[in-house]
């Protein structure tokens, strides 16, 4: 098992620190892929697409089987989503993204890119779900702190958070078609 496999295995077992590490590891690689394919659309759009891909990876992470290699699994999701997302934005897509091996990892631009689409989608969530995602993501609150602030149990916060991400993906689907 390589580092990606062990991180994802621990993440799927519920270890959120391993999951953070996994997402941070793959993000520059995915950003490189998105820019290589949709560079003509500008960095901000690419960052939107990247976030869409990350959301998809997140919601489909249970389809990875422990013991199978992560990269083919991950790149299949990325290929599917990037083609979809770039096409939806009117970009001419090169569909032949078979080999990602030569793509260089990319760090965010000097001015940390503030992607707009995800924020817009979060705005379409119901108030509580939107607050929840913002508190944890932007304000860095823990699940326990959110529970206290919104008067919910930790279990309820986790369920609501998961549901919020699923809704975001659905909203995304409806908006780009």
């Amino acid at each position, binding site marked *: 098992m390589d580092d990606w496999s062990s991180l994802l295995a621990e993440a799927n077992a519920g270890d959120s620190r391993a999951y953070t590490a996994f997402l941070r590891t793959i993000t520059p690689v995915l950003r490189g892929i998105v820019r290589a394919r949709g560079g003509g659309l500008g960095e901000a759009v690419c960052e939107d697409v990247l976030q869409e891909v990350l959301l998809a990876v997140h919601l489909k992470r249970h389809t990875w089987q422990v013991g199978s290699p992560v990269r083919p699994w991950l790149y299949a999701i990325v290929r599917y989503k990037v083609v979809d997302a770039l096409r939806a934005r009117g970009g001419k897509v090169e569909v032949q993204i078979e080999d990602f091996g030569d793509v260089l990892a990319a760090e965010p631009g000097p001015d940390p890119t503030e992607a707009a689409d995800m924020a817009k989608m979060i705005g379409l969530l119901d108030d509580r779900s939107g607050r929840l995602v913002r508190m*944890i993501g932007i304000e860095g609150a823990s699940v326990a702190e959110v529970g206290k602030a919104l008067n919910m149990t930790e279990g309820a916060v986790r369920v609501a958070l998961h549901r919020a991400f699923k809704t975001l993906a659905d909203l995304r689907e409806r908006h780009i078609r």
Partner: protein
Amino acid sequence: MKTEDLIAALAADTVTDTPPRAILWPALVFAIAAAVLVVWGLLGLRADLVQSLANPMSVMRYVLTGAFGALGVRLALVLARPEGRGSARLWPLVVPAAAALAMLVWAYASTPGEGRQMALVGKTMTTCLVMIPLLSVLPVAAILFSLRRGATTTPALAGFAAGLGGSGFAAMAYALYCTEDSPLFYVTWYGLAIGGVTVATTLIGTRVLRW
């Protein structure tokens, strides 16, 4: 929202969904059981069911439909994974398809000329063409449901697999009622029913299996 913030939010969500495989088996077993019960309750099992199992031509109905059912479900499970598109193999389907065609040709050659028409049309063609698609609804829905939990990167092919698997098992249940044991009948009409359901489900797949 910054990507780093999104990562923080995603990482806090420790709920993972059930893998498609774990959903498929219970859902499919339930759906097939329901199909068998409908056949039993609505149509009735064929009176000579036990004796018919001694007739290889009759038993082949279960073997062929069961083979399409099992291969379809297996294909669906491979395609439920995003990278499954690359490792999915369609050629095993050739085996039951070739066997069915061979039996059709053999039955045509060995049935006397005046009996062919009767064997082909049978007495229950309409029932067959109506009931197999109806019985397919639950098994197909069960497979599509678990595919939606998966992440197929080829919605049409996954829909095809769901249709073939679900209607294969539905036809297998229908065979418990059906007394037409000539391959001229069942290869033709079971085949048409399974084919129709599979085409329809392929189209449905392109819509409901996108994500």
